[in-house]
């Protein structure tokens, strides 16, 4: 499982470096993501720009992460590729996430403020 994380404006950006979030790795992906919620950062942004394929198990894992984030942390998605976007749209789960076209867009407000 390859995830890389960087701090940005007090938040944390976690990039999924593998091309697939599927049934074979959904559980280990969820476990690896969980570690990034233990720090002081109020927001975790998951960068999906390297991910070409998400199946319903992968989608379930991403929903589970949102549920575990609870009220204390916010969790947003960024950089969905067309195939991944389609899975969220067809299941209407695009309606429950904050989704940015890119990580940059997720920080656009801060850029204006500074």
């Amino acid at each position, binding site marked *: 499982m390859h995830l890389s994380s960087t701090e940005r404006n007090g938040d944390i950006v976690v990039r999924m470096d593998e091309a*697939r979030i*599927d*049934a*074979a790795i959904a559980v280990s992906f969820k476990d690896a993501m969980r570690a990034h919620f233990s720090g002081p950062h109020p927001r975790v942004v998951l960068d999906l720009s390297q991910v070409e*394929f998400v*199946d*319903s*198990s992968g*989608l*379930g*894992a991403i*929903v*589970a992460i*949102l*549920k575990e984030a*609870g009220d204390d942390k916010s969790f947003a998605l960024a950089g969905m590729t*067309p*195939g991944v976007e*389609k*899975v969220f*749209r*067809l*299941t*209407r*789960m695009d*309606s*429950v996430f904050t989704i940015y076209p890119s990580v940059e867009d997720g920080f656009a407000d801060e850029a204006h403020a500074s």
Partner: protein
Amino acid sequence: MTVLRTDVPGTPEGVRNALAKLCDKLHDEQVAEDRVRSVELVVAEALNNIVEHALKDVAAPTIRLSMDKTDQAVAFEICDCGTPMPGNQLPPGTLPDIGDRVETYPEGGFGWHLIKKLTVNLRYDRLPGENKLSFQLPLSDEIRT
């Protein structure tokens, strides 16, 4: 014409490898990228369901997959020797309720909905000792959703 016939080990890794082979084949056949993505998703959901449910208690589980292709569509037959579908029929495939509270967001139940949304002529037959699932995906006009 049958363009792919393969035995898939009934494990998540077996499914992964079969999907890679399937996508290579579709690219060889000059299928458009957005169609390849839909085909991969549907076949992934179908195979994952078989691995997680039908073949759960089967020793050395194997799935037989074949793909026929015309200019208009790809047609699949997927057979396994696992337990039958509940009631010997396809699940309803309705989208799980999202609800209005984060605690109740569904983490599963999406698979059959995706299959039904993206396929035509979806059919399940319980044969003696075997499940057979067949469906087609059009290659020209995407099913608009």
